[in-house]
């Protein structure tokens, strides 16, 4: 049985169908990549899975149970956590405070503070515990998104473009973290525009275009798929 099952999920915004009848399943321990052009509906799909917006139609199961209508915070407690494509800011808290809040999901306060420091160190942010997130570099803001997710001790992480805007060299650190997490048994679903990253990390890739799933295959097959090339790579090559 797959850990996460997305079954014919549709999400409309008025007349716009942002996600259209999308299905896929993620077995425990996999790294699934999701790609698609801008506006394809990837972030909307994540928002629906993580409980932030309800699906217009369809069914989502996590660890065998339906999670449609379950609030985001309860999903986090069950082990399903998301990151945000738009890095989140906190006006009057330190990075340690923010990650501590995440760690409180499963730990008492004193342990949570220690664990938060440990997680920050693990993502390579040691020494930045007392900075305000707004003052961080883009790379560190992205790492903080990762750290928040990690601190909740998830079974499955939905990563929305955590490498976007980073140089190839800067993606090394988050890539190593994703690999390490995965080797510890955490299931990962990641949306990513940076092709070299997703090709190297994902074991399988789902391609979305105009809200619909148009392909699902191993990375080496995906780059050969004509529909994918037309929908996605074509556009990027032109640009």
């Amino acid at each position, binding site marked *: 049985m797959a850990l996460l099952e997305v079954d014919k999920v549709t999400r409309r915004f008025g007349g716009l169908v942002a996600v259209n009848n999308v299905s896929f399943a993620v077995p425990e321990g996999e790294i699934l990549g999701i790609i698609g052009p801008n506006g394809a509906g990837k972030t909307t799909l994540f928002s629906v899975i993580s409980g932030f917006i309800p699906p217009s139609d369809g069914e989502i199961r996590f660890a065998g149970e339906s999670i449609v209508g379950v609030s985001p915070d309860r999903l986090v407690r069950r082990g399903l956590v998301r990151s945000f494509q738009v890095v989140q800011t906190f006006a009057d808290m330190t990075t340690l405070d923010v990650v501590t809040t995440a760690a409180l999901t499963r730990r008492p*306060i004193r342990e949570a503070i220690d664990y938060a420091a440990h997680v920050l160190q693990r993502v390579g942010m040691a020494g930045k515990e007392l900075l305000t997130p707004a003052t961080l570099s883009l790379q560190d803001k992205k790492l903080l998104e990762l750290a928040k997710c990690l601190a909740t001790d998830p079974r499955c992480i939905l990563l929305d473009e955590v490498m976007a805007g980073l140089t190839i060299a800067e993606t090394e650190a988050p890539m190593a973290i994703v690999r390490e997490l995965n080797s510890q048994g955490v299931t990962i679903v990641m949306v990513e525009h940076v092709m070299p990253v997703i090709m190297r990390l994902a074991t399988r890739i789902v391609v979305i275009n105009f809200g619909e799933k148009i392909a699902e295959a191993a990375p080496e097959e995906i780059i050969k798929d004509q529909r994918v090339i037309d929908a996605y790579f074509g556009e990027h090559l032109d640009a």
Partner: protein
Amino acid sequence: MRQEFYKTLTSPVWLVILVLAVVLPPLLPSYYLHIVILALVYVALASAWNIVGGMAGQISLAHSLFIGTGAMLSTALLLKLGVNMWLGLVISAIISGVMGAMIAWIDFRFQLGHLSFVLITMAFAEMGTVIVEGWDFLGGASGLLLPQDKGDFLAFQFGGGIGAFWVMLVLAIVSILINVAILNAPLGYYLRTIRDNENAARAIGVNILRYKIAAMVISAMLSSVIGTAYVRYLTFADPYLLVSPIIIIEVVLFATVGGLGRAYGPAFGALLLVPLGEILRGKLGGTLPGLHYFIYGVVVIAVILMSPRGLLPLFEKWFSRMRPKAATSK
């Protein structure tokens, strides 16, 4: 962080303040004692309000409803039904807590933004005024007069001046300590995260409704208890003072000037501004009516422009500059 909590309790600054607070007041002339008591009332109120307004970042104007319930209802229960004021205090606090929970629920259910929250809570406060003024049980527009304070502790009497001082000192300290405790507990982390970014809070497992209700209930009950103690000191339960929008605007002002969201910020603001306001009024109110308001306003505006996050952060910065090694507390 728990160690920090106890370190705070035993820090020399606290001890000095405590010793001064115990030794000084009995020696004060009654006019100054009154100012000290008033300052303590507002230290307690501003600190109680801080749990919602500072930590959770929700500018609630409904708190005059809780203060008013604590004051008017406990008084009415005693005068009209003969209910012991200690029991009245408990009943009022529970009713305030329930009203607070309702307001927090409405805020969550209808996803009120910051401005709508301010307006809705203002409407609640206004409703409170109307109900008190229109309902004879609560004294109507003319208010209620408590029996003379003979110092009978079991009847919630503390013997006026000095007794009231002790009660308010305890309430102010309890209110501040509750702030310290919350800030060092999970609730403090949850509230600050909700304040800074509600969506991000949900995404890392924070149950928004539960903790907004928790903050509002604690804050409302505390405000109600302070209201009961305050009316006992005043003896006259005046709806125009105790259920008025003015009292809550003062509380918001003191908390903001002192430093929102910090354990000692609101207390600091009240300790500074209450005596300043009273002394200005005492010195200038007779000769040039209105001038004291003007000076007071200029001081408040200057503080807010100089340090938008309040005076306490400003002092902390100066302090850490003078002693670079000393770590500043939050």
